[in-house]
């Protein structure tokens, strides 16, 4: 009996991982399309970066937070594999907190910019800025919900380690997208 259960779980884990990789391939093309549009627009002189009115400090702190949350996600998966449920819940909770902190700071950034008149319709750069970072923030939000769900499920004893791994792959992807967006939007 335990052998068949094990085979089942292995199959599910494999399916989950294959599926998330294909999904992420499509996501790469989504952000790739958007980021290339921005780059081409900049090269054509359309979307010049408005450095003076971006809050690079907050964005740098956000980058640090998001990178740290990737680390806690890795730890959560490690704990899940070892069967250490308590620690897994802790690390998943920390990852969720990291995501929420990122979203909070992003909201703070948006508010400041909009109050200074830099709305999404204030020029091509700002249009791209809000669309790219907004779409990314939406992905962060989905990741936060997924991780929080896993955290609660673990508390109820429903966790399967591979789900943490699948959520982790997604979370790292969201992190990597930010690694591209941060220098492209704030630094270059």
């Amino acid at each position, binding site marked *: 009996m335990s052998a068949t259960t094990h085979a089942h779980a292995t199959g599910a884990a*494999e399916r989950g991982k*294959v599926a998330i990789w294909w*999904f992420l391939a499509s996501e790469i093309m989504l952000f790739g399309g*958007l980021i*290339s549009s921005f780059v*081409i627009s900049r090269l054509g002189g359309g979307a010049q970066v408005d450095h003076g009115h971006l809050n690079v400090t907050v964005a740098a702190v956000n980058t640090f937070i998001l990178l740290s949350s990737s680390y806690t996600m890795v730890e959560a998966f490690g704990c899940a594999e070892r069967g250490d449920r308590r620690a897994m819940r802790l690390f998943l909770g920390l990852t969720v907190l990291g995501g929420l902190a990122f979203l909070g700071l992003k909201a703070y950034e948006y508010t400041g910019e909009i109050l200074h008149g830099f709305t*999404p*319709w204030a020029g*091509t750069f700002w249009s791209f800025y*809000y669309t790219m970072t907004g779409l990314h923030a939406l992905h962060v939000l989905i990741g936060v919900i997924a991780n929080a769900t896993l955290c609660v499920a673990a508390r109820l004893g429903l966790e399967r380690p591979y789900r943490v791994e699948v959520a982790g792959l997604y979370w790292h992807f969201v992190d990597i997208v930010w690694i591209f967006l941060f220098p492209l939007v704030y630094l270059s």
Partner: protein
Amino acid sequence: MSHAATLPRVHEPHEAAGFFRTYLYATDHKTIAKQYLLLGLLMAVVGGFLSYAMRWQLAWPDTEVPGFGFVGPETYNALVTNHGTVMVFFVAMPILLGSFGNFLIPLMIGARDMAFPRLNALSFWLLALGSAVLCASFVVPGGAASAGWTGYPPLSAKAEYTGVHWGLTLWLLAHAIEFAAFLLGGVNFLTTIVTMRAPGLTVGRLPLLIWQLATASILFLLSVGPLIAGAVMLLMDRLVGTGFFLPERGGEPLLWQHLFWFFGHPEVYVVLLPALGASLEVYPVFARKPIFGYRLIVWATIVAGALSFIVWAHHMFVSGMDPRLAMPFSITTILISVPFALAVFTMIASLYRGSIALELPMLWALAFLAMFITGGLTGIFLGSAPSDIYLNGTYFVVAHFHYTLISAVIFGGFAGIYYWFPKMFGRMLGTRLGQLHFWSTLAFFNLTFFPLHWIGIAGMVRRIANPLQYDLVAPHQWINVFSTVSLLGLIAGQAVFFLNFFLSQFRGRPAPANPWQATTLEWTAPSPPPHGNWGAALPAVERGPYEYSVPGAAQDWLPQRAGAAVLGSRS
């Protein structure tokens, strides 16, 4: 990845379920396949009705269309736009990818269901929601979307250019939902194919349809992202007031065209490849011989799929992009003729020394090949940049894509429907009405669309509501009348199909498990297959998919399924 094939699959026992679980919250891949098929056919009625109103207006401008009313220029633009949208996204994809993929992937690879049955149900219901949103967009105040199925901004980006407000926004939203549905569906297809193949079913033994469906899914997954990004930007332009595509706000209208056609060309193959795959399944069965050059076809599919990502600007030769880009894109475009020529040659070679029975699925598959050759050849005229200067935007283009994309949907699609109908519904599809349907469709399809080449060459541009306004076109108006009358015949022929489809559900001869004496796995399951498909034991595979007329064998076909040679007798 072949280790996946040897993994044992263990599932919970599949039990009979109640009405709600069987029909509405169905997770069985076969039920979902039927749902896709019915939704696609329903939307085909909608799309067909739009084409009827549109062609009536072209033949007899500004007269009342029976059953529709007067078609003014605004309504005409809405008809053109939504006919294209409905047919490509809500008929072709649901039937060829949604229905064929869902029904056949698990059955052909020897699985009990898709990898994620509930996600599968979600995909279908998202598509149903998208269809509902699209239909709602026809009736909202301000009228339906009327910026063409390609939705080029600035026309589509600001309501004052078309006078359409919610119609176009809902139209965009319907697309977004449809993309999400097929994105999830594609992930499901690929995961199923990669992880759930029966023991012994190595990639080299996969039926070619599975290769085509997998390639189509990959093409969709990798091409739709940029268009989703574009759709978000267009929605922002319409609703938030950004200016991505509006020059007066610093935007660039051509950006949309790049994003759209980066998706658009692979999308053509998303529809074409399953139709090609269905035909490839049919030829060996009715010619009783192996497909010619299995590996060549696989490579041709992959190469064509890869090339489809670097040809998109052939839709934009005269769009105002840098003219120096035209020849490189022209070269890549014309290069695509090589893998497709290879596919065509192998299909013809598959008939060589065959024992060809012209039963209905074979008739459709052969007609698909003939139409596809015609449409493929006219594509060269448009792929060559200098001749496209003249032909771009004329009815020649309309004729060309009706011969490629639409002939694939009609002829390849019906080849599949006639071939798998017994497996899907457990009854044979009536042959007498089927013959009438096939021959009328073949005749009227050509009579409707072939003359459009001529009027296009004569200078009739697309998307005009009244050809009589043009001195170059007016003398050839008889072609428009001829084409419209033929379309009425084409539509009448499809009514025969619907009649046959529903009559055969009840009155058709009960189908045996393997009515065509075919080798692939799905024919070793009962017709229709029960929930879970295979009973207690999963099938194992011991040979390739097209082992017909093997020298020295006792019968002229050897099933893929291990030990199935006795099961497959004609009973």
